[in-house]
């Protein structure tokens, strides 16, 4: 509970900026009204006798100009109110709702077939925020990794075994151009914790290797030196290992698979069923007496076991970090040390977790000698741990190196590729994990977040100095010392960072910090320095952090740097982080729903972030920007024509347009096309969005909704409104046809309104990147709707209304003037925009425009193709299960109905495996799958 925070309600950054725009529009409205009001106060005068200004009506009382101005102000506010795009909010909400429910939730690219989980947008008001994310805070376990340790490779006596290729190696190979043929089979673990295949070691084949003795010691070390408890039946298939860490379980499982099956433990003995030791095919049970166990801790970074063979041989097996093992090796055999060191580096670079294995033969005399000291230390009452460590040092020396193991902390599928894509998109990824420093760094390597040519800053509490103070046990002293240390470290790093920044091509920077230091670094006095520094780093890893600290780091960037943040996690400990970020993403489809329940979007796999951000986020952002700016332009243009008219009416607040025109302008004549653009506009297609992740930077920089963009729209709105008003007015000053008759106010205003509707709709077409059938229908439909409306409206006599518009359109259309003006005004109004667009594209092209041009000749069916390449494993069954998932009815809301008969869920469960279509839609879906040319092949 201490880690929980109150649930924030999230609004997107774009919407907040939109509020500012609306506020600006309100002030423009106010200024316009004030201007008009002052004008009306000045204008009013008894000399216009035909207007009969007198005190009978307050608004037209020439004796009280102030009241006139105030009342006119209110009139003008209603008159100019269309400048505030109220329908914008409704339209945007509608667009976002469809985007999230129809597009994000149904995207096949974000559908995880194995767990049958589609993406889920749990809120619809953050879609465009996904297009502007600059910082991603990711949990490690369950998000980046599968929390699955697999024995992957090993090096025995200077020889590397194991044919597997880790994700990271594949990524490297792909970047360098070569393609690695990967068999599916090698990637799938043979057993939980064991993903190793090398014929040279398996099934006793190690006997024929150059160093069979090393192999034997290696396997025995794996089988004996651990603290694992076996559970269940003692057959290799059924046994389960209980281990403190999944690494240990993986190592023991590996030993089992190599033929050294640890099946039983008693307090003093470990029983190992060894195969092929004496000769091929022979199996024997060997009990090893465990004399001492020197346990693992973070200081020692190693673990040793002294055991006695049945034949009396005394051996110390030791496994641990390479740094500590190498210090304690016996002299000589430098070749082996060197090659093993090379292998360690190779494994490390591949993102694997390594352990060195070593042994030492003990003579019984020296052992007895040592054991006395050990017992003494063990029974001491003060500083027992310290003494035990010291005693251990005495025996853990002159070790013989056997080799090393490499365990893969299995990454989620596609994580390194996804992270690389995201970082190319200008997104910085921070890993916030509760794991240890080494693990975190290891994963950062595996995910390509940190590489060897990066400058790393490590701020850790695991230093000798701190440990010393810790040992003294004075908490106040410790806190003071820690703070001081962290401060100094930060200062040092910060200075170094500044140096690197000054030099032109400095290396990329990475910061690793652990939870304890973070606690002090988040102190208000140091916070700024931490933030400044971490913003320069391309990746940041925070390890051993509490859930609350995760949230604090997130808010640090969110509030301190004003950047848009996204948090992704799968567990309850990520909830506060998910809530603290602008966008929270939960990993769904696994056990535990807290993260999903707290999230704004739920996806099944980390790699779907690429689609969620680069495709949906980017599109949503671009679309919403277009919708917002277009609404702004449209309403401004419309209102300004009204505003210009006010100047020629003696500031009386006379409407230029009929009431109905004005109210239906936003609702009918211009409503639908903008929604269509908000749904369908695509600058580049999904595949290209992912191929050119850099396009995403346009969103981070907020390219499409800068004040500069808004100003450009405002400029064109003013220009166009002037064209509408003055062109229509100026061209209507003389006789309108050969009979010499003149137009009245309503004829002119209907003419102007027609021009506005036509122009505004065509302007929309000009801003489209893709034009579908729906664009044509909606734009054509809107213009048509106007004509149909005005034909009917001017043809009927409405009760209670003035008949201003009566017959107006017919009068208008009977003159040639109408057609000549209708051609002239929209072209004159749009031609400026057109030239601007052409000029901008030519000389200052946006990146997406270049990409459009590069791929201008390619057909636009890439996404369907991508599905088949990317999700080749989507078998018809899986496709079907997806189809069922997507069917109507399955996702319907809870209606409170309860009845004890097989519901959908249980029915499907009972039918599992039986291939009978249960629903009409299901049959339909399958029929369509069959006729579709490109069905996923079985």
């Amino acid at each position, binding site marked *: 509970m201490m880690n929980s925070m109150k649930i924030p309600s999230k609004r997107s950054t774009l919407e907040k900026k939109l509020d500012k725009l609306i506020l600006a529009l309100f002030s423009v409205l106010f200024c316009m009204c004030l201007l008009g009001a002052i004008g009306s106060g000045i204008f009013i*005068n008894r000399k*216009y*006798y*035909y*207007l*009969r200004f007198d005190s*009978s*009506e307050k608004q037209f009382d020439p004796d009280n100009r102030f009241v006139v101005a105030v009342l006119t102000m209110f009139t003008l506010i209603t008159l100019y109110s269309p400048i505030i795009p109220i329908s914008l909010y409704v339209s945007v909400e509608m667009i976002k709702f469809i985007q999230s429910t*129809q597009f994000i939730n149904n*995207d096949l690219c974000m559908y995880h077939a194995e767990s049958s989980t589609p993406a889920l947008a749990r809120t619809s008001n953050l879609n465009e925020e996904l297009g502007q994310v600059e910082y991603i805070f990711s949990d490690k376990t369950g998000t980046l990794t599968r929390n699955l340790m697999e024995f992957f490779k090993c090096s025995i006596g200077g020889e590397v075994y194991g044919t597997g290729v880790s994700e990271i190696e594949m990524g490297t190979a792909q970047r360098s151009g070569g393609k690695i043929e990967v068999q599916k089979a090698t990637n799938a673990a043979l057993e939980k914790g064991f993903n190793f295949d090398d014929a040279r070691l398996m099934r006793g084949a190690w006997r024929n290797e150059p160093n069979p003795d090393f192999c034997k010691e290696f396997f025995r070390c794996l089988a004996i030196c651990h603290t694992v408890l076996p559970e269940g039946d003692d057959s290799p298939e059924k046994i389960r290992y209980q281990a403190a860490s999944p690494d240990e379980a993986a190592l023991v499982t590996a030993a089992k698979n190599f033929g050294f099956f640890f099946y039983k433990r008693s307090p003093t003995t470990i029983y190992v069923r060894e195969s092929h030791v004496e000769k091929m095919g022979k199996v024997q049970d060997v009990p090893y007496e465990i004399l001492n166990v020197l346990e693992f801790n973070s200081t020692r970074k190693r673990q040793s076991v002294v055991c006695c063979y049945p034949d009396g041989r005394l051996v110390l097996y030791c496994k641990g970090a390479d740094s500590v093992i190498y210090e304690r090796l016996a002299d000589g055999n430098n070749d082996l040390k060197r090659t093993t060191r090379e292998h360690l580096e190779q494994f490390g670079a591949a993102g694997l977790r390594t352990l060195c294995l070593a042994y030492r033969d003990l003579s019984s005399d020296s052992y007895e000698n040592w054991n006395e000291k050990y017992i003494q230390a063990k029974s001491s009452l003060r500083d027992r741990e310290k003494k035990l460590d010291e005693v251990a040092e005495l025996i853990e020396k002159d070790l013989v190196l056997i080799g090393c193991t490499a365990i893969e902390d299995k990454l989620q599928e596609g994580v390194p590729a996804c992270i690389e894509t995201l970082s190319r998109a200008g997104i910085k990824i921070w890993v916030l994990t509760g794991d240890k420093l080494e693990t975190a760094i290891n994963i950062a390597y595996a995910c390509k977040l940190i590489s060897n040519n990066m400058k790393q800053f490590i701020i850790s509490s695991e230093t000798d100095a701190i440990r010393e103070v810790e040992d003294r046990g004075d908490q106040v002293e410790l806190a003071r010392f820690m703070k001081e240390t962290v401060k100094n470290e930060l200062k040092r790093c910060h200075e170094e960072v500044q140096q690197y920044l000054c030099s032109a091509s400095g290396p990329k920077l990475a910061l690793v910090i652990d939870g304890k230091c973070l606690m002090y670094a988040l102190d208000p006095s140091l916070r700024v320095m931490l933030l400044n520094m971490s913003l320069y780093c391309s990746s940041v890893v925070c390890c051993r952090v509490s859930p609350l600290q995760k949230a604090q780091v997130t808010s640090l960037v969110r509030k301190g740097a004003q950047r848009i943040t996204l948090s992704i996690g799968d567990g309850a400990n990520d909830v506060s982080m998910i809530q603290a970020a602008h966008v929270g993403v939960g990993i769904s489809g696994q056990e535990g729903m807290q993260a999903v329940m707290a999230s704004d979007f739920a996806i099944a796999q980390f790699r779907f972030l690429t689609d969620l951000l680069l495709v949906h986020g980017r599109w949503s952002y671009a679309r919403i920007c277009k919708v917002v700016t277009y609404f702004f332009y449209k309403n401004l243009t419309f209102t300004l024509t009204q505003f210009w008219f006010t100047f*020629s*009416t003696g500031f*009386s607040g*006379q409407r230029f347009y009929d009431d109905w025109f004005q109210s239906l302008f936003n609702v009918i004549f211009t409503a639908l096309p903008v929604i269509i653009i908000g749904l*369908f506009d695509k600058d580049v297609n999904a595949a290209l969005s992912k191929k050119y992740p*850099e396009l995403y*930077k346009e969103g981070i920089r907020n390219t499409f909704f800068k004040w500069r963009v808004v100003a450009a729209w405002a400029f064109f709105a003013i220009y166009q409104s002037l064209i509408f008003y003055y*062109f229509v007015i*100026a*061209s209507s*000053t*003389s*006789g*309108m046809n050969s009979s*010499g*008759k*003149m137009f*009245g106010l309503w004829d002119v205003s209907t003419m102007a309104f027609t021009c506005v509707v036509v122009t505004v709709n065509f302007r929309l077409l000009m801003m*489209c*990147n893709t*034009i579908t059938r729906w664009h044509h229908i909606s734009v054509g439909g809107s213009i048509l709707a106007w004509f149909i409306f005005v034909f009917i409206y001017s043809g009927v*006599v409405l009760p209670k209304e*003035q*008949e201003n518009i*009566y017959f107006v359109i*017919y009068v208008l259309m009977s*003159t040639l*003037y109408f057609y*000549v003006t209708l051609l002239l005004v929209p*072209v*004159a109004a749009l*031609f400026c925009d*057109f030239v601007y667009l052409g000029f901008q594209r*030519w000389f200052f092209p946006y990146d997406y*425009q*270049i990409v459009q*041009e590069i*791929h*201008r000749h390619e057909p636009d069916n890439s*996404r369907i193709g991508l599905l088949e390449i990317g999700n080749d494993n989507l078998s018809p069954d899986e496709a079907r299960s997806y189809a069922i998932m997507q069917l109507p009815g399955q996702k319907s809301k809870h209606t409170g109905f309860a009845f004890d008969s097989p519901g959908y869920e249980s029915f499907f469960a009972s039918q599992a495996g039986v291939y*009978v*279509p*249960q629903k*009409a839609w299901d*049959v*339909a879906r399958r029929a*369509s799958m*069959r*006729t*579709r040319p490109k069905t996923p092949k079985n």
Partner: protein
Amino acid sequence: MKEDDPTVLKAEYSPSDGWRLTKIESSPEELTRVDEAEEKFTQQELPACKPILTPGLVITTLISIGIIFVPIGLGSLSASEHVVEIVDRYDDACIPSNGDDEAAKRERLSFIQNAKTNKTCIRNLVVPKKMKHPIHVYYQLDNFYQNHRRYVKSRSDRQYRSPGSEGDTKTCAPESEVDDHRPIVPCGLIAWSLFNDTYGISTKDNPILINKKDIAWPSDKNSKFGSNVYPKNFQKQDPVGGGKLNESLPLSEQEDLLVWMRTAALPNFRKLYGRIETDLEADEKITVVIQNNYNTYSFDSKKQLVLSTTTWIGGKNDFLGKAYISVGGTCLFLAIAFILTYVIKPRPLGDPAYLSWNLNSATR
């Protein structure tokens, strides 16, 4: 069920039998089409054309606009040139005093407001070019706010349309009824301020008839103003605003009123007075006898008499032609400018080197 079975089955659930399959009628193709359309929608793969505003397209569009617009502009400009128009301002000439001081102004007002004074005024005009009939006679008022809110809304279309709605004068304030609450027909400020100058035109030898029929739009005449609605109580009490109406003629026949009541959009406007059905020769001298009744002297206004012929485009209006020519000309000019810049500073279409991240790495 086999995969290639073409029949479409429908699953039905009944409590007694559980699920069972039955054949349904609709064809699989139909379902497939709906299905695919839906998938295209949700996967955002709707077929679309992707127009790219290439330099070629910009130049082509500009040139074609130019090519279409310039001839239209020239055509309408020449049509406008063919219109012969005589404009004569008479408000300052048809008044005894023309001074700018207060006294002169008062004198002007007392002259125009006095019903007894002789307001006849004679203007001699010369026809500059041959004017073919029909020649339209307009009066033009400047600085007259027919579009003022108080003015525009002060009318009652229902009253004008049918005699039954005679009392429907709520919207007509302040000119809705006379003191004893009898409604004014036609009510409202617009009708009240009816323009009432009259013109009589004659050449050297004989008077020319000004035809005052068919000067209002047919819709006004036929349906907006009733043929059985007669003026009542009109201009019967002070203040008297403008012209009076013939009480024996229905509103629909009083075309002067109809024209006046189609309120103008701007404070400077022209309204049709009548038509001359004879040709006027060039240099012919015509005499206009004006009854200068209408008070525009209270505010700074102008009264003008306009004689104008028309062509297919209407009266004299250079604006449309000039606008067309300037838009078309600008387009052609810009097209040439674009072509020149294209030659001087070409940008190859779809060159990855122009991508911002490539530009940055190139400059580094």
